[in-house]
């Protein structure tokens, strides 16, 4: 008996490769432990052994509780054989390049990809300098100029940590045009351009102060007549009421109320603990399948076998339920009168 027990112990030990040597050779410890458990000694019958095995596994109940009864697995839709093709999402594309997007008047977003081949090329060009160099974003302000790489109004650098693939760039001025380079900068000032982005323009962030007016007739789309704002000040006075002092109201944006924003929004709970309880009464019964049954005068739908079941929410107080059935021929009638009382007492 002792031996049998120690064997089962050894099974456990086997899982740990370091102690493999012990296999089949019970150590003193396991023998002693097994001996101190008389219950196990009794495990003679296979049935008991089974139970023991089960109880040995912590956390697994002997029987699956009725509530967690698993339903039969539905067969998968035939198209599931194609699911494997839905993993062809690529992470990168093997091309060096950088793309710039404007987000708002003061922020740009750049994403890029740099291939190992481009890095190799940079290594060649920069030589020994490469090892001490850094990857940078060089941001050029190019409003109203045809950019040739050297004629920007101004530029600034952002040093990138390795492995970055995108970055938000804060720019100091709104309503300007920008281009961004990704490149490798050596301490000596040597610069290797990896890729140059598209040009973008950032929008305005306030009411424009240009107030010349130009009007167009949609009938003659291209014939425009300009009214030089001679009565400049007058116009301004006229419009200020229309603009109003109010700027854009943020809470009026769509993000707050959209068909996609919900549906899950939990309210702030007034107190930490809450409890809700409700009662319902189930009225059920059976009769001949072709009979007619009413509860309080309302007809009840019978199942094919003549059984029926309905439920009512119960509130406190007395409730009357008149259940009556009438045979199909109309010759027989039976009525039950139920009285149900509910009282609720709340203790706090």
């Amino acid at each position, binding site marked *: 008996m002792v031996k049998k027990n120690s064997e089962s112990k050894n099974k456990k030990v086997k899982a740990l490769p370091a102690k493999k040597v012990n296999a089949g050779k019970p150590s003193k410890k396991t023998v002693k432990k097994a001996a101190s458990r008389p219950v196990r000694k009794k495990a003679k019958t296979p049935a008991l052994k089974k139970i023991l095995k089960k109880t040995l596994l912590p956390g697994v109940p002997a029987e699956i509780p009725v509530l967690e009864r698993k339903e039969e697995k539905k067969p998968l*839709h035939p*198209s*599931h054989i*194609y699911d494997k*093709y*839905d*993993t*062809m*999402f*690529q992470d990168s*594309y093997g091309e060096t390049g950088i*793309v710039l*997007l*404007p*987000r*708002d008047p003061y922020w740009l977003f750049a*994403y890029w*990809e740099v291939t190992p081949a481009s890095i190799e090329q940079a290594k060649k060009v920069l030589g020994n300098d490469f090892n001490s160099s850094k990857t940078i974003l060089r941001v050029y302000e190019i409003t109203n100029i045809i950019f040739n790489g050297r004629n920007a109004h101004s530029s600034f650098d952002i040093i990138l940590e390795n492995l970055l693939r*995108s970055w938000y760039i804060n720019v100091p001025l709104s309503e300007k045009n920008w281009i961004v380079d990704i490149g490798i900068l050596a301490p000596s000032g040597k610069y290797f351009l990896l890729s140059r982005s598209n040009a973008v*323009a950032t*929008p*305005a*962030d306030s*009411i*424009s102060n*240009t*107030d010349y007016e*130009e*009007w*167009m*007739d*949609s009938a003659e789309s*291209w014939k425009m007549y300009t009214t030089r704002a001679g009565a400049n000040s007058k*116009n301004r006075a*006229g*419009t200020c*009421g*229309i603009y109003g002092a109010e700027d*854009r109201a*943020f*809470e*009026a944006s*769509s*993000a*707050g109320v959209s*068909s*996609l924003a919900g*549906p*899950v*929004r939990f*309210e702030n*709970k*007034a107190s930490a603990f*809450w409890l809700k309880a409700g009662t319902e009464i189930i009225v059920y019964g059976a009769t001949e399948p072709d009979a007619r049954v009413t*509860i309080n005068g*309302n007809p009840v739908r019978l199942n094919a076998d003549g059984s029926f079941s*309905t439920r*009512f*929410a*119960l509130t406190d107080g007395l409730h009357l339920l008149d259940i009556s059935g009438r045979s199909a021929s109309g010759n027989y009638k039976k009525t039950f009168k139920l009285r149900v009382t509910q009282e609720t007492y709340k203790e706090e």
Partner: protein
Amino acid sequence: MPKGYLALVLHAHLPYIRHPEHEDFLEEDWFFEAIFETYIPLLLVYERLVEDGVDFRITMSLTPPLINMLADPLLQDRALKHIEKLVQLSEKEMRRTEFEPHFNNVAKMYNWKFNEYRAYFLKYNKNIVNWFKKFSDLGKLEIITCGATHGYLPLMRVNEKAVHAQIKVAVSCHKKHLGKQPNGIWLPECAYYPGVENILKENGIKFFFVDSHGLNYAKPRPRYGVFAPVFTRNGTAAFARDIESSKQVWSAKEGYPGDFYYREFYRDVGFDLDYEYIKPFINADGLRTFTGMKYYRITGSSDYKEAYDPLIAGHKAAEHAGNFLFNREKQVEHLAKGMDRKPIIVAPYDAELYGHWWYEGPQFLDFFLRKVFFDQDVFKTITPSEYLKEYPTNQVCAPCESSWGYKGTHEVWLEGSNDWLYRHLHKAADRMCGLAERFPNAHGTLRRALNQMARELLLAQASDWAFIMKTKTNVGYAINETKDHLSRFTKLYEDINNNCIDLPWLNWIEYKDNIFPEIDYRAYL
């Protein structure tokens, strides 16, 4: 003679969600809820206004994905099943609440409404696009289009052909289902960038909308601010949103929908009732979901809720309609003084706000439009097309890049949670254009594959995915959808390049992602 105009604009949109491979798909419920909580209740309002001889104008954008879903037989059948289940549930509920007259009342209201919705849904052969079309033909409703899949255009413009395709495909979808060229467009998320008007003009679109700052920050400063449209340089008109009227309805804090007597959205029998009882009416996988039967009113800011009373809520809706009317009258009177033309107040809303979020919304509109017609002469409702007809001469301005999202910029759709998308969307657009150029006259299977590529690209571009990632609801679903469409796109791309198209798979994917059956990939040329 009216002194000014009000243009109500309802933007009706849902992303294209259709899963034939699942019996019951959680996210498809958005669509069914929208039909039976918003679209049909709104259509019934229009129906009754017309019956009663009330003249009114509303502008509605029906986005191409929504039109395609409304016209899809599989989804139509599922929608019918949805409303039939609701009828059943309401019948059961009428009995269950027999001892609770305050709830019983509400259950009866639902039963009445669900039966009515079901009847009208069947009357229009399960395709309510035709019902919308009826009011458009009567001249009451101006239906405008949107991006083909609600793609966020300013973040797509690095390849303008992709923007072009979004507009072109949308316009041809609109023509197919509504029988006419759309005059206007609701830019997806109201997101404008300078230059998009050229693409609009090429596709015959005459006006679009921007958010308030889109015109307030325009160059030069528009003389009438947001209260008259401006022309962009190419003659396409831009209308701008009015803040005041928006806030009265939109705002979560001050807006009408927050009134304590209105129906509480978040208490639904799908979550409140006994599991076994409600199980046949929630998701087939046993997940508790909203059913649409809600018994409580907002009551207050705490958890404590009282029973909903449709009668009192109706009175509130009338009261709010009166208030909205009064405010618009005052606004128009004030504006008209300083202008040489009648001001136009543009009030755009997500259509789903009316009915789905704000249950009494359609009722509010009904009261409001009746009051506008019968009770005052200060202003009239109008469509943008009619306004442009009355005032063909407008100031020329360059609107400012903007959106109607938080802060009015692109930030909602370009931030930490969703910026990874654009790398892939841009690449896919470039690949699409490359293949279109390589095969400008494809036939047979190759043509089908290229058309399907265009569908997958468009579906991946929907701004809804980025929005969901940002708002952190159903994030997993949004990521999966994007990746699935991009994966399918990539497979098609590689199959075409290897000259080896997987026909059985193509058959399936054409059936599954069947938006725009009429699509022509040459939109990317």
